[in-house]
């Protein structure tokens, strides 16, 4: 008995055939590469920093113990590359398992692994690690397949160094956005504005995404209200940092100061957006002089400048409940498809786009809104 190719089964709500959804293009706005052993980055760093990070007693994986681990694995169990190592470490296998069968035209790589620097106290080590990390992804992932588009990381510790890194790489083919590993500093703070000005000038959106450091590592953002007791509780609350970032950005006035700035809040959920923006609008109307610098209603800025991603998709029993929320957040322009491959809660693009979302939004979410925000850098 030989293993056979998948054939369609009568499974409710799924096609069973990757890539079969009725859509013309697909941009996956959230794919996670992983470097199997970050010591491969050592030759790209100064000797001092390499010794600092990869010395005989300390490695970048010698992070604080994960206090709230996933009960089985945070990665898909069927995405282990035959070449060895964890899911996401082999770009050729990811292409074979994800890009090709699902007809992904562009995969936005969000390297949350760079969030490992969040608790580091050594700013120079953080910057050198980030630079080496970016070069590695451009060489080994984008270099292998141009459909991999790299979100370059910047250090969260040193805005000036972050700007230098963007200036170094903004003109490099394959660079599609800037990933800011979210440390405990609010993203609306003015220390970040020069980075935002540069990002907008170079046509690079700012991407933020949970790194795993939340409620876990020193200097990381925490979910509100205290320490979650287990993984599902923490996972349910990961929207908190996203909500805080959104309000911080909007109420800071940065979208008036840098009107062409685009921000993508990836994997923080989206069904909360209508409720929060309604509340923000109400606060703005009643804010009097406290919000004198904000020229328009918060929901206007969100609609114009902020994008969200689909995964993990909320799946209410009646999908029309979700559709109503999509209307309220103007999802035709604010929502991008994302899979989160190869993490444990990967969403199948064919299932999501064909059976969970309304038909009239399919192309907008599958690729058109991604083109609007990432522009020609997607290479489509």
């Amino acid at each position: 008995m030989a293993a056979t190719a998948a054939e369609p089964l009568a499974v409710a709500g799924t096609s069973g055939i990757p890539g079969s959804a009725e859509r013309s293009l697909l941009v996956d706005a959230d794919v996670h590469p992983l470097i199997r052993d970050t010591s491969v980055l050592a030759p790209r760093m100064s000797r001092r920093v390499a010794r600092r990070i990869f010395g005989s007693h300390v490695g970048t994986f010698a992070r604080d113990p994960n206090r709230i681990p996933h009960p089985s694995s945070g990665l898909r169990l069927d995405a282990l590359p035959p070449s060895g190592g964890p899911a996401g470490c082999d770009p050729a296998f990811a292409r074979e398992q994800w890009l090709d069968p699902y007809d992904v035209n562009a995969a936005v790589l969000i390297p949350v692994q760079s969030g490992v620097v969040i608790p580091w106290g050594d700013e120079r080590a953080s910057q050198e690690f980030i630079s080496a990390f970016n070069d590695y992804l451009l060489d080994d992932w984008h270099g292998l397949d141009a459909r991999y588009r790299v979100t370059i990381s910047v250090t969260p510790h040193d805005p000036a160094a972050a700007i230098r890194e963007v200036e170094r790489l903004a003109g490099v083919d394959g660079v599609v956005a800037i990933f800011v590993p979210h440390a405990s500093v609010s993203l609306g703070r003015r220390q970040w504005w020069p980075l935002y000005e540069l990002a907008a000038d170079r046509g690079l959106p700012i991407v933020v995404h949970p790194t795993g450091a939340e409620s876990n590592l020193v200097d990381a953002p925490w979910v509100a209200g205290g320490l979650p007791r287990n993984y599902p509780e923490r996972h349910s609350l990961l929207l908190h940092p996203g909500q805080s970032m959104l309000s911080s950005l909007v109420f800071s006035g940065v979208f008036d100061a840098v009107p062409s700035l685009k921000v993508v809040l990836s994997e923080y959920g989206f069904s909360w957006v209508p409720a929060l923006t309604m509340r923000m609008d109400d606060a703005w109307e009643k804010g009097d002089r406290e919000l004198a610098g904000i020229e328009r209603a918060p929901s206007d800025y969100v609609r114009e400048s902020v994008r969200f991603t689909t995964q993990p998709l909320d799946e209410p029993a009646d999908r029309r409940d979700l559709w109503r929320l999509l209307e309220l957040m103007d999802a035709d322009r604010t929502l991008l498809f994302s899979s989160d491959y190869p993490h444990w809660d990967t969403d199948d693009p064919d299932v999501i786009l064909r059976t969970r979302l309304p038909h009239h939004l399919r192309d907008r979410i599958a690729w058109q809104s991604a083109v609007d925000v990432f522009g020609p850098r997607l290479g489509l």
Partner: protein
Amino acid sequence: MSGLHGVGTVADFELNRFRTASLDGKEIGVVRTRRGFFAVGSRCPHQGADLCAGLLTETTMAPSRPHEYVLSRDRLVLACPWHRWEFDLETGRAIGAITRKRMAVYPVEVVGDDVFVRLPGGDG
């Protein structure tokens, strides 16, 4: 075609490791365990992931009501490799009743050294 379908000999099956076959238009996973042979539809009823690449355990919980966690070592549980929906290997019911959808399950018959899966609709 329905009825009995040969899927190999007992020796073909490594313990707790699924082998798949396309039978009657369905992709079926067959596994030999210490509790005997089991056959399941390989696509998860949630998003269609390959259940045969999932985690087979003995066991975390017995089928139970929502928010009732009944520990048991009497049943085999198959967890999807993606979202970790868990199904009773014998009945196909979701652990914790998180969904009414079931994993498809099929009877397995061993005749001598030969292993057969019985699909519905025929007398074999």
